[in-house]
């Protein structure tokens, strides 16, 4: 799975969690929490959605290192490498 495919997958999940947000304006290097006004329930839903979309289980212990879209892409790329 390429980085672009992962990015699109994460954005699809985010679109379902924050339906009114303009994700085209999302800065990949800035925190999702502040940009999208999301909370811990949204983060949990994001983890669940990524599990369903990309079949990657993000442990709670990894939450602290996942603040930006780039963080998610990087983290998920390491765990989906070789899947395509």
């Amino acid at each position, binding site marked *: 799975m390429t980085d672009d495919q992962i990015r699109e997958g994460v954005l699809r999940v985010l679109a379902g969690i924050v339906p009114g947000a303009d994700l085209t304006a999302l800065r990949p290097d800035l925190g999702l929490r502040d940009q999208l006004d999301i909370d811990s329930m949204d983060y949990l839903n994001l983890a669940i959605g990524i599990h369903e979309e990309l079949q990657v289980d993000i442990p*709670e212990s990894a939450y602290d290192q996942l603040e930006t879209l780039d963080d998610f892409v990087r983290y998920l790329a390491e765990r989906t490498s070789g899947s395509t």
Partner: protein
Amino acid sequence: MPTLGADMSVGILSSWLKKPGDTVQRGDIIAVVHTDKADVEVETFASGVIERMLVEPGSEVPVGTPLAVIRESGEAEPTAASEQEARLMISPSARELAHELGVDPAEVRGSGPGGRIQRKDVEAAAAARDPARPPPSAPRPAVAPQAPAAAPSADDRGAAMRRAIGAAMSRSKREIPHFYLGHTIDLSRAMSWLTESNVHRSVSERLLHGVLLLKAVALALRVVPELNATWQGDEVVRHDDVNIGVAIALRGGGLVAPAIRHTDELSLDELMHAFRDLVTRARRYSLRSSEISAPTITVTSLGERTVDTVFGVIFPPQVAIVGFGAVVERLWVSDGQVLPCPVVSVSLSADHRVTDGHRASAFLVALDRLLQEPEEL
């Protein structure tokens, strides 16, 4: 029209989901009502066959107005007038006056036969709420059919919600003699237990720490039950069911506080499921009437934004609100040692007509004790 919360006296009937002749069971959703805060799915409180609808879609309907006639099993053919008056226990004249004065009939104590609400009861309730409030110049019709409204814009909904919240909070600060207590709780055991528990759960079954707080509040209310109550007329009514209203921030501003029913009886897994479902639907502006009318106390948390402490304003007719700040690491003295510990600041805003600082502090002590034994929640 069921109670739509302290900040809502009317709703617009958007659509019927049932038709005359349909059989319904208590709890079935029969209609959708639009309010400034949500599209509310109205549940029926009776089982039987729908005789007829009394309100057309697009009508603005005051709280307490009958929406439909349901003939219960074995019940004789009803007449519209007797059905309406018996069920509401309020005279048509009093109902009209209540609407005119913006008084929720559900919160008026009737002095007539069998507790029937009369005009004087409504006048007394209005005077007690705001003695200085002048009467309106012209009464509004009880039911005013109108063209179905277009879906509100985000700005319109936001402005309407702010007005509704402002009205409810103004009423609260005007009528309820608040007092406030604060306490800091060591969450070392609770957070360790939560982390360990979540390691063994699938991602979709993980718990948030807020669920532990909700359950602990629910159980602490068994210790100090006078806080699980509503103020009706001029007296407090305690409730056996613990239905915690959860303050949920909406996208772009505003909030709602629908209830998780029987919070104290749910397991943590059940509570997490209910909590997640409620947050999801609230943020889609889709709630059920029982969730809006049921709260017996509210819990609010601003910890997401690293706020240390929140001192809430009580949602009428409730008599208390519990506020949680962020879970933060602080140096904490425990067993003679100074250690970094996760702690949370909790506040209690309570109604001095109902309780006092001594009892309210007992609630916070109980809450603290419960959170020291998370495996028992």
